[in-house]
């Protein structure tokens, strides 16, 4: 081993110490989800589909998807669901308060896979949050892509996220936005009712030039993938963004392992051809 060569304290600081991010905007999105715009000491420099470890010192740390497209400034957008001890504390914070941020981590989406292609986004529930980091750059330059279709589904109208964005994206030339709820549950809703899988068979997908990016709950993948395969889309044309428990983000803590891959480093975005045969990936 190299002796006395490395400043381990500096390495520890670079690896595990969070940067301090200021919460500059909070928006209530649903009963459980809030939108957060953060200001970092310096740009994070993330790719679409990457995530960051978010923490409140003294409470804990968790992986959270980055929801904005790549950007040069030091702003960062996230949506955080109040679902555990840490996120409950985060929901109690106000604008002007701070969070710890480490990252960005993970593979992310590579826009080069999407340029010149018909792009289909399939988002189930919170899956829209990370996918938005890819949808934004695609919708910003529609001329660089073919037909763009976004299928976004959630449980009921009250749980729909990013309504303004969905409305705006539906007006982008060449873009189609399909909004669904599993059930209206007696709430007003002027879009479709059904599962995200329902509109897929009728979509005119060109098996040669279509690329799919999808993110949703584990139960969604099996049926959506069966439908896409029936439309002759190959596993190299499909990208999935997966969720796992993570404690470090750097491939050490072991929690996110699926078969031999680490979701935090090999993923969380995977080309289906890389994980289609793995028993633990899509379940």
């Amino acid at each position, binding site marked *: 081993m190299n002796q006395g060569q490395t400043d381990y304290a500096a390495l*520890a600081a670079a690896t595990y110490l969070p940067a301090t991010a200021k919460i500059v905007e909070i928006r209530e999105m649903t009963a459980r989800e809030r939108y957060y715009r953060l200001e970092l000491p310096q740009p994070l420099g993330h790719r679409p589909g990457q995530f960051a470890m978010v923490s409140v010192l003294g*409470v804990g740390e968790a992986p959270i998807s980055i929801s904005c497209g790549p950007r040069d400034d030091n702003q960062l957008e996230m949506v955080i669901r109040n679902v555990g001890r840490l996120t409950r504390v985060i929901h109690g914070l106000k604008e002007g308060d701070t969070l710890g941020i480490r990252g960005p981590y993970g593979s992310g989406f590579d826009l080069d896979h999407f340029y010149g292609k018909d792009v289909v986004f399939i988002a189930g529930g919170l899956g829209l949050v990370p996918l938005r980091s890819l949808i934004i750059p695609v919708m910003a330059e529609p001329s660089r892509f073919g037909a763009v279709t976004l299928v976004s589904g959630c449980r009921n109208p009250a749980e729909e996220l990013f309504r303004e964005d969905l409305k705006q994206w539906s007006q982008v030339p060449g873009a189609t936005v399909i909004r669904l709820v599993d059930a209206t549950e007696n709430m007003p809703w002027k879009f479709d009712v059904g599962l995200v899988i329902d509109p897929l068979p009728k979509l005119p997908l060109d098996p040669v030039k279509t690329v799919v990016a999808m993110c949703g709950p584990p139960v969604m993948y099996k049926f959506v993938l069966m439908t896409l395969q029936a439309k002759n889309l190959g596993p190299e044309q499909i990208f999935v963004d997966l969720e796992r*428990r993570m404690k470090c983000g750097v491939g*050490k803590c072991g929690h996110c*392992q699926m078969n031999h891959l680490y979701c935090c480093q090999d993923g969380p975005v995977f080309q289906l051809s890389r994980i289609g045969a793995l028993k*633990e990936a899509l379940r």
Partner: protein
Amino acid sequence: MSDFLASLTQVQQWISSLAARYTVFFPTPHGEANYRFTAIGADDDVRFAPYRPTITPPVKLLVPAREELFRFQHKEDGDLLLSPSVDSSFRVIAGVRPCDLKGIFLMDLFFERGVADPYYLARRENTAIIGYACTTPCTDRVFCAAVDSLDHRQGADLFLTPLASGEILVEANTERGIGLLDSTDLPPCEDGPARKIGAIAARPETYGRSFDADVQSLSGIVEQYWDSPLWDKHTERCFSCGTCNLVCPTCYCFDVRDNLALDTVSGSRTRTWDGCMLPGFAQVAGGHNFRPQPAGRQRHRVKRKFEYLPTKYGHGPVCVGCGRCGRQCTVDIDIYDIVHDLIEGGKS
């Protein structure tokens, strides 16, 4: 680098003398039948007793059960102080058996490769290791020869081999190892390699439990099993207590927790051992569990040791055959039996 000859008494006295200068960990009796790596004093009686593997392996001195990553303090002026807690204190671990040495060697790979882990590497760089060869199986549980760890030597600064003559061959493999010998006046040994071969030849022909398969073939055999009743068979009694993870020389998965001091403005972030056999290991926020059944967790543990990590790191099984997990399992589930059954099942 250099070989020396010593009597057993000389070696034991020399290790005691090291304890006067450094923190020295040595396998020390604990209760009636167990041993632990314990920091010894210069006056302690150091004996290379034929001991069962220590309750936890020595590598756990490098990945402690609870380890501080950094401290934080919110100052009154609004500033936040963050300071990483890297432990670079020097220590010696003496009396490390080949299986445990292999465990440390593998752990070096896990923490060096990819994103380097500063905490492990700082501790490892400042740890001198004195290995000790095994000449007879320490318990009837071991299968070190079957997984190629019985003759592991890499990673030891000094390695001690008991010879048939009663003497100890002292091999110094690093400058640091030679430095540890500076207080001794041991005669050099010119024919060290030949004496080592003699010591190996004097071992029992069948050393501990063996597999009816080459060590190189184990990964391929384990890879063939996914939906198999064998996983259920070997978890029927499992309490999912995680003891097998805690005592394993190659388990290093961890949880990360925060600790807030009573002043509510300072505290620390620590990592603590976690185990893939524990029910919540792969559970995400909201409750979805990616490995809800004990059989799936057992499969993951076995595949990680015999398939995933061996493929990733290329140094053979990531099980060193020490037998700790089986011996300390409350209900006698033994990874040897599982792999043995997988090998047998593949034949039919």
